[in-house]
């Protein structure tokens, strides 16, 4: 018997590998014309893995203080061998991960995979999306450049305008009245400790729920009689398809990171003017454009207060989409489809509007 086989047998005698992996081996994935949309969740998870790996590498050199943060990122980019590549992959992978998370969310929304009994899967997924945005927001500040400084200033000011709890929220986020060293320390610990810990447990819950309920077959496919339709085994058939997709994602990621390495910009100056053409990362452009378009006051209330409340309300309604659809009875599915389409159109149009006008 070969070495690895002896080890496998030794473990098998103790934990019964067959029984342990039975759920995975017996899992099947429905095969129909929308099956490829199932791949998006896996790609998002893969990119999260890339983030963890490259993030750990960046941690070896990054120093989270006002006087050293920018310089340490400069050091990583210019002095450390392949430091530019690690940083560039981390930044690009972050963007791709958020893009894939949005694509996954909309595919689930359009195929109405959130219906009973999968409401909790949808909600845990939404929490994961918010966590991704939290990663993006907190990580953006860490290089401590002009853009990140003002993005953080505005990004913390918006929740700070909420009635009653606004100021406490602002102080909690900034670690003081202004964006400074305390903010950097908070964002750093959030980015590398708090968010990864919460995300890891959320991913586990999300995957357990996906495993428990299996993949949802879209209602339109079900109507066509998919009930008796074909399935593929998850392992190894579908898993190999996953691995293929991940390989493509990795190649795209490397090409982007090498051809368009991320820039560092100028060091943050808390007393300097915000540079012209300043705008947040693309995934916050929709909110950014909304804030630009809102008038100074609406019914004697400041426009940005209305904006902050509207973002919160829209987010809450979106998370509750499966419950609302159930509440609306027979018309529920139609309303849900209109809302999903409306949300996509609004997000896409305001994002493009901001992109081409700043």
């Amino acid at each position: 018997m070969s070495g690895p086989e002896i080890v496998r047998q030794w473990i098998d005698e103790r934990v019964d590998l067959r029984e342990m992996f039975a759920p995975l081996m017996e899992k099947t994935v429905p095969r129909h014309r929308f099956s490829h949309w199932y791949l998006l969740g896996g790609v998002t998870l893969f990119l999260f893995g890339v983030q963890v790996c490259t993030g750990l590498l960046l941690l070896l050199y990054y120093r989270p203080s006002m006087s050293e943060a920018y310089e340490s990122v400069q050091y990583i980019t210019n002095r450390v061998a392949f430091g530019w590549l690690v940083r560039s992959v981390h930044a690009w992978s972050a963007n791709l991960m958020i893009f894939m998370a949005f694509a996954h969310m909309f595919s689930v929304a359009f195929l109405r995979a959130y219906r009973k009994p999968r409401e909790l899967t949808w909600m845990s997924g939404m929490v994961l999306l918010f966590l991704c945005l939290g990663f993006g927001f907190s990580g953006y500040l860490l290089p401590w450049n002009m853009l990140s400084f003002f993005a953080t200033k505005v990004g913390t000011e918006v929740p700070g305008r909420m009635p009653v709890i606004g100021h406490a929220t602002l102080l909690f986020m900034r670690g003081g009245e202004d964006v400074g060293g305390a903010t950097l320390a908070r964002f750093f610990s959030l980015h590398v400790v708090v968010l990864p810990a919460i995300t890891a447990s959320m991913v586990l819950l999300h995957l357990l729920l996906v495993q428990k309920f299996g993949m949802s077959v879209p209602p339109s496919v079900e109507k066509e009689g998919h009930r008796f339709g074909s399935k593929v085994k998850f392992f190894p058939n579908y898993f190999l398809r996953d691995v293929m997709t991940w390989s493509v994602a990795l190649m795209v990621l490397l090409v982007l990171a090498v051809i368009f390495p991320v820039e560092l910009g100028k060091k943050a100056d808390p007393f300097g003017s915000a540079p012209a053409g300043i705008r947040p990362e693309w995934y916050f452009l929709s909110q950014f454009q909304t804030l630009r378009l809102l008038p100074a006051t609406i019914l004697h209330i400041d426009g940005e207060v209305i904006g902050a409340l509207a973002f919160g309300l829209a987010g809450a309604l979106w998370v509750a989409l499966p419950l609302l659809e159930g509440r609306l009875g027979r018309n529920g599915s139609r309303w849900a489809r209109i809302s999903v389409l409306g949300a996509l159109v609004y997000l896409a149009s305001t994002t493009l509007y901001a992109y081409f006008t700043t």
Partner: protein
Amino acid sequence: MATKVVSPPTSDPSQQLLKPKSRRKILRFLMGGSLAGVWMSLVYPLVRYLIPPAEANVATNEALAGAVGELKPNSAKTFRFGTHPALLIRLPNGEYQSMSAVCTHLGCTVQYQPGTQQVWCPCHNGRYDLNGRNIQGPPPRPLVTFDVKLRGEEIHVSRRQDA
């Protein structure tokens, strides 16, 4: 002949309290209450810890903005007024004007635009005139303006007394 045991009616309220069900209720209340107390005594300091202590609010009334001759007419610079940035503008006629550089919309730092002779916030495209009045875009309030005094070669800026 079977004897029937009849329990005496419980008229005494203290005896009623001792009924197993009510005793359980009381114990649950006491246990639950003390557990909640223990949790609160943990949560309260935690929440307070997360919100940083208030900073000593040293109200700045005056700051050195720059030197005479530093700015050409129709140009501006930012300087530090206490803990916040402020703007010193030299108007085309050579006079000085100063105001807070913190946009009243969402706190970005504004800049002077020589072309339009307006103060502009690049974050959300808000505009103010040279008196700090919000004239376009989302800013809800005007910028706080300061008094400018020349002392020898130095330009000093101070908070308006009526403000």
